[in-house]
């Protein structure tokens, strides 16, 4: 009897709970989303800029051709946006996109394939004197065509494994062709897109305000009445804004300490979402400076690092966590941990690793107590804790390292000169995609931002092979070969730890999913507030 009663009670509770859950998950319209942005856009032109300071406040005014599925925590799955479907030709050299109909710009005019073509022509084939930050990403594109008002076709020079992913860039806003034809720089100082919000105001140094676009093509969206992006440089002020419930979220990320403090102060009022972050600090060895031209020395330096213990300790105090190779852990092309553990510097047995490091140094003729200078960027988080950890690790194999901290804005000016022995380098991606993430490591004549100044035709060839491979499994294998050569056999660079993105946000905020990229999921069309 008691069992039946218990069962009935459970059914009753479930019956009560289901409508509550359903109600809580039902998006609610209304409210203004308030969020601090730690950086401010220099201009409004997404095709020109490279900062999240543009994406966070400006992306809600625009749509892109495709987008990353806003519910995908991996941040790699393509989803429809202005294009509702697409097909790829059998030879992989032609991508045809069918556009939605009834999409309006904020000025009331209809969006057609002419606008998409004009926008992509500006990105891929900018006229002389016009800067396009992502032109280099589309070297495979031969032409962009608009055969009719609702069709856009990209003709490629060769089949590409990354082309579709390159269209997921959150920077590739679709602009109005007529405006671009009159003044190609118009969008640097003006905002007018097809996005879920219309532009209200930007008070420089203070805030950007957006209001719901009533004519938005995705009926019922956006849920919010508007948003207010407030520029706040100081992280303490950002935390205080969330803690005082004046702001709902900060989309870039907070430190572990900030997360713990917010959770302690606000309890259930705060929800925390975390993800590996598609940003990583790595150490570049200047191949023009002795003894770093010797791969045994470079291998020794990576072998000295206990990444697994480092991860445990540093993730308590810094925005780093996962042990990683050249791809964000957990994403489609990432090397699984058991395979990664075979690479130099990733061995689980640190004593064995450091003994090998000492042997290599001895073999290369590097004396005990050898001194060198490590050039680091004057940005405290996470450059400082990572540098302290590495310097301490290198001391354990008998090296004596001095850190030279260079002011942040002038940093690349200094290391480009090539006077440094070793330096901290940085990469942050707007989507997780091998073409983007490993381009950095190509030979210096192909990539001038290679501050190791090395030439490695084998790496270059592997890069091209993986880029042109349309078979994901084959591509994975090539990426692994690339990774092994880069980090183990040649040790041109050494990876520190993958950044870790921590987003504590108001529990009132729903419909937003953290991804490895702080450039994604900022269109805000799916976001809603429960109160």
């Amino acid at each position, binding site marked *: 009897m008691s069992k039946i009663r218990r069962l009935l009670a459970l059914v009753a509770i479930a019956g009560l709970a289901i409508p509550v859950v359903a109600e809580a998950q039902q998006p609610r319209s209304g409210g203004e989303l308030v969020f*601090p942005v730690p950086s401010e856009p*220099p*201009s409004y032109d997404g095709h020109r*800029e*490279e*900062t*999240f300071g543009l994406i966070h406040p400006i992306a809600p005014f625009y749509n892109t051709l495709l987008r990353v599925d806003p519910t995908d925590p991996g941040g790699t799955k393509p989803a429809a946006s202005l294009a509702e479907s697409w097909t790829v030709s059998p030879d992989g050299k032609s991508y045809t996109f069918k556009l939605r109909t009834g999409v309006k710009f904020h000025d009331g005019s209809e969006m057609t394939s002419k606008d998409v073509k004009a926008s992509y022509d500006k990105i891929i084939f900018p006229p002389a*004197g*016009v*800067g*396009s*930050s*992502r*032109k*280099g*990403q589309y070297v495979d594109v031969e032409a962009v065509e608009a055969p009719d008002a609702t069709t856009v076709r990209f003709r490629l020079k060769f089949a590409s494994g990354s082309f579709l992913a390159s269209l997921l860039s959150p920077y590739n806003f679709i602009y109005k062709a007529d405006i671009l034809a009159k003044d190609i720089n118009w969008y*640097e*100082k003006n905002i007018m897109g097809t996005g879920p919000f219309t532009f209200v105001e930007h*008070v*420089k*140094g*203070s*805030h950007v305000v957006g209001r719901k676009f009533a004519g938005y093509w995705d009926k019922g969206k956006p849920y919010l009445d508007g948003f207010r992006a*407030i*520029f*706040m*440089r*100081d992280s*303490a*002020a950002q935390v*205080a*804004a969330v*803690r*005082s419930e*004046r*702001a709902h979220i900060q989309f870039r990320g907070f430190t572990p300490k900030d997360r713990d403090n917010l959770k302690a102060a606000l309890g259930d009022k705060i929800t925390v979402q975390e993800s590996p972050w598609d*940003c990583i600090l790595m150490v570049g060895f200047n191949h023009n400076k002795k003894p770093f031209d010797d791969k045994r020395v470079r291998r020794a330096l990576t072998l000295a690092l206990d990444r697994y213990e480092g991860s445990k300790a540093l993730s308590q105090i810094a925005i780093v966590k996962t042990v990683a190779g050249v791809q964000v852990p957990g994403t489609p092309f990432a090397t699984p941990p058991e395979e990664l553990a075979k690479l130099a510097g990733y061995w689980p047995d640190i004593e064995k690793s450091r003994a090998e490091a000492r042997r290599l140094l001895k073999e290369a003729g590097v004396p005990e107590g050898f001194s060198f200078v490590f050039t680091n960027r004057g940005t405290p988080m996470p450059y400082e804790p990572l540098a302290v950890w590495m310097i301490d690790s290198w001391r354990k194999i008998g090296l004596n390292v001095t850190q030279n901290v*260079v002011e*942040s*804005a*002038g*940093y*690349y*000016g*200094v290391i480009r000169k090539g006077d440094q022995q070793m330096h901290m380098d*940085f*990469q*942050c*991606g707007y989507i997780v995609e091998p073409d*983007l*993430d490993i*381009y*950095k490591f190509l030979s210096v004549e192909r*990539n*001038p*931002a290679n501050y190791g100044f090395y030439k490695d035709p084998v790496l270059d060839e592997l890069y091209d092979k993986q880029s042109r491979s349309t078979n994901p499994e084959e591509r994975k294998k090539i990426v692994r070969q690339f990774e092994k050569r880069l980090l183990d056999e040649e040790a041109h660079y050494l990876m520190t730890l993958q950044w870790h993105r921590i987003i504590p946000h108001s529990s009132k905020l729903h419909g937003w999913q953290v991804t490895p990229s702080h450039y994604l999921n900022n269109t805000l069309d799916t976001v809603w507030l429960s109160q």
Partner: protein
Amino acid sequence: MALYILKRLLAIVPTLLGVAVLIFLLLRVVPGDVVEARYMGQGGQFQSQELMQIERAKLGLDKPLWQQFTAWMWGIVRLDFGLSMWTGSPITDEIKLRFALSLQLAIMASTIATCLAIPLGILAAIKQDSWVDYAVRVFSISGLAMPSFWLGILMILVMLIFFKWLPPMVFTPLWVNPWDNLAQLIWPALAVGYRYCAVGTRMMRSAMLEVLREDYIRTARAKGLWLKLIVSRHALKNAILPVLTVISLEFAFLLGGLVVTEQVFNLNGLGMLFVESISRRDYTLTQALVLLVATTFLIVNFVVDIAYAWIDPRIRYR
């Protein structure tokens, strides 16, 4: 007096020219430029040299230094400070926006500081070595020892933890909504004004003590004049001169120097703009801001010199 004023005014021109040359050269000596700060600081994957050359050409950074300097000077002569290299907006617009906030904050902090410093300093001097003097000394030394940004952080924490309240996050001009405006600016004004007041109080006390020991004050006392009258008519006029210098220089400093306090309270003021323009290597904006601050200091100095000459006629006869 007119000749004195003219001389002081003429001295401003070569000083400003010196500042202009110095800041122009110093900025070019520092590694990096605005294009690098824009495209290389973000860790982007495709850093194209072609793009950087296009951007440099757009900003005129590919021209020889002398041409850049002449163009800038010619603009200044026409009161045209050019465009910010970072945002492309007119520099006057960039500065105008922040100037209102910084000026209001400077005025509020100076008012708080002056209204407290002068009476407290006088009181401490008159009541030397009494409990009143000790209390004022503790108050002023605490103000000197406590950085204003730290006091600001304490204020924010107290408001947040005990009152679950924070000042508004966005600046509202006084004429739009006085309540919101004061709710945001009173706290930084108090934090900054306290330190400023501490300096003024110490200065006022020591200057007043010195003057109160003068023979003419002793004579006035011997004649049986009221202390209140002695202080206000005879002592204050002479003791106020060094205090005036300190107050005016602090005021000029407040216009562009409140970087950390502005960060703590998230104020969109000139101090933050200054730091951002330097870190972005926005040459044109930094140059304009340096000139603005230098001009403010020179004007304040000029006004103080005139006030000195007015308060103490001996100065203008030298």
